[in-house]
């Protein structure tokens, strides 16, 4: 054996790698869309302080007042009033409460249930995988709209029913994606390497695999929040969500639809809010997926 003394050292590549937070703050999509979502959250929490008027106070003398800047507009009613003389801006602001509650709670629960089952199916394989996968297949064969209407009909209307309906339908989305991702990751060399250090299976699943599934999961979660907002609006629109004395965007759209020819703003304002919110969730999901993925990272 030749003898030698190693003198060479290796320098590493590039400057100090940025932290996860730094990377997120550099992404315009994350900052823009995330900022908008934060703004909505603040709006929902501070609605009683921020809203110029009581969202339920009717004033039939001032019904269908157009938004500020249009002819016959009234001072104080920035977005006009609806058919019962209620302030549209205040109702849109209060409407964020229901929309965001549903977005976070329903999407969060669907994500939790779906991804746990998906992780188990993808990692354990075999019988567990077969069982969960068949369950998902059967589940997805039900028409979702019918299933949600059926559920709300059985559970009764209200916020909890809307949330339950979304969770019951959409957990399969998470389950499928997470299962496929987990299966792919489980075959990677680093998982084998973890096994050769003698890690137990739960440690491998949650410490090694989950961080690699997380970027996809987070993107899907934000996407699902947008979907949940739309589903809640649909159920409100058909009168299956919260009672009509709670302002919701879907409910406002339903009311506005009837008088769209006389007062288009009653329909347009909640529609714009809904649209902006869903776009923001989607963009945020996109941005998060890009900046959280260690391989895609530039």
């Amino acid at each position: 054996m030749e003898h030698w003394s190693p003198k060479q050292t290796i320098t590493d590549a590039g400057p100090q790698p940025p932290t996860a937070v730094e990377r997120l703050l550099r992404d315009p999509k994350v900052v823009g869309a995330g900022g908008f979502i934060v703004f909505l959250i603040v709006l929902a929490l501070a609605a009683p302080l921020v809203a110029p008027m009581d969202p339920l106070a009717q004033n039939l003398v001032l019904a269908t007042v157009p938004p500020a800047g249009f002819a016959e507009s009234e001072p104080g009613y920035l977005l006009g009033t609806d058919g019962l003389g209620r302030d549209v801006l205040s109702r849109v602001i209060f409407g964020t409460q229901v929309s965001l509650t549903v977005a976070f709670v329903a999407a969060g629960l669907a994500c939790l249930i779906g991804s746990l089952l998906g992780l188990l199916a993808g990692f354990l394989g075999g019988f567990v995988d077969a069982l969960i996968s068949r369950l998902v297949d059967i589940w997805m064969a039900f028409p979702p709209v019918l299933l949600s209407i059926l559920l709300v009909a059985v559970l009764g209307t209200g916020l909890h029913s809307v949330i339950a309906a979304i969770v019951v339908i959409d957990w399969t989305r998470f389950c499928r994606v997470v299962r496929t991702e987990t299966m792919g990751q489980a075959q990677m060399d680093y998982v084998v390497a973890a096994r050769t250090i003698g890690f137990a299976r739960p440690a491998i699943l949650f410490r090694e695999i989950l961080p690699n599934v997380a970027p996809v999961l987070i993107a899907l979660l934000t996407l699902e929040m947008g979907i949940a907002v739309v589903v809640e609006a649909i159920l409100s629109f058909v009168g299956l969500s919260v009672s009509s004395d709670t302002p919701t965007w879907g409910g406002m759209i339903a009311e506005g639809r009837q008088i769209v020819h006389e007062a288009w703003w009653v329909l347009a304002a909640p529609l714009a809010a809904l649209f902006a919110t869903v776009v923001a969730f989607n963009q945020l999901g996109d941005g998060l997926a890009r900046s959280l993925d260690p391989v895609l990272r530039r």
Partner: protein
Amino acid sequence: MTPPRLAIEALSAISLRDGDRPILRRVSLSVGVGEVHGVVGESGAGKSTIAKAILGIIPSQVRITGGTINFEGQNLLSMPAKALRAVLGRDIALVPQDPSTALNPSRRIDAQLTDGLRLKRGLSAREARLRALALLEEVQIRDPERVLKSYPHQLSGGMRQRVLIAAAFGLEPKLVIADEPTTALDVTVQKQILRLIRLLQERHGTSVLFVSHDLGVVAKICDRLTVLYMGRAMEQGATEEVLSAPRHAYTKALLAANPRYDRPDTGLEPTPPEVVAALRAEIAAFDAAAAEAGHG
């Protein structure tokens, strides 16, 4: 003579997917304390299967059909899973083949280096980090602080392999399995990595089972070697003896196949057909004898 650290005896394995084709045919080899033992052979010879059998990561389509793997007197093959997990990482560690996939892309180097130290050596987070720093210095990485904070994709292949070597030797195992650790690296880095493995091995008195298809690499680092062909150990002995006076026709062919600058006209020769025919006959005779013994 002290007993060997690792003694593989009559290890046999078959591929279930491929019509029960034998992968290992009663392979025996032993690795002494502080010894580097090379396992060479062409692809498909069963080299990696030996490594995987020791580490308990045999793929589902491969089945061990016989033999024992004795590590310090315990048969790893008959050990309960929990007991094996305790031995792995503490007494046996792996330096994997491909440094680009063997590190978790989502976790920083410090997390991956300290995992084993905390689990297997019972170090606290602080202690493990200090130890990881020292380990990176030991594998000659300059600026270890920065490397610790990096993600794998921010490091070069050679750097990643150094990190993996640090992770393996850092656990202070008695046996390191190096599964083609230089195959995925370019030649200049290969040399540094080989030196590093040898240095750490000598410093810590570690036994190493070094799996490679490259006789040149094995010649540089191994004390003894086993030449494998179609799952059969064709020749075994001290590296210098085997390489300077190969007894088996296959070893000679393997040596001839190694490109040499001093013999440019004989470089990259395929194994001569008559040697292949003789080898196949030898394997067939072995299989026939094994079948006979199995029936009798």
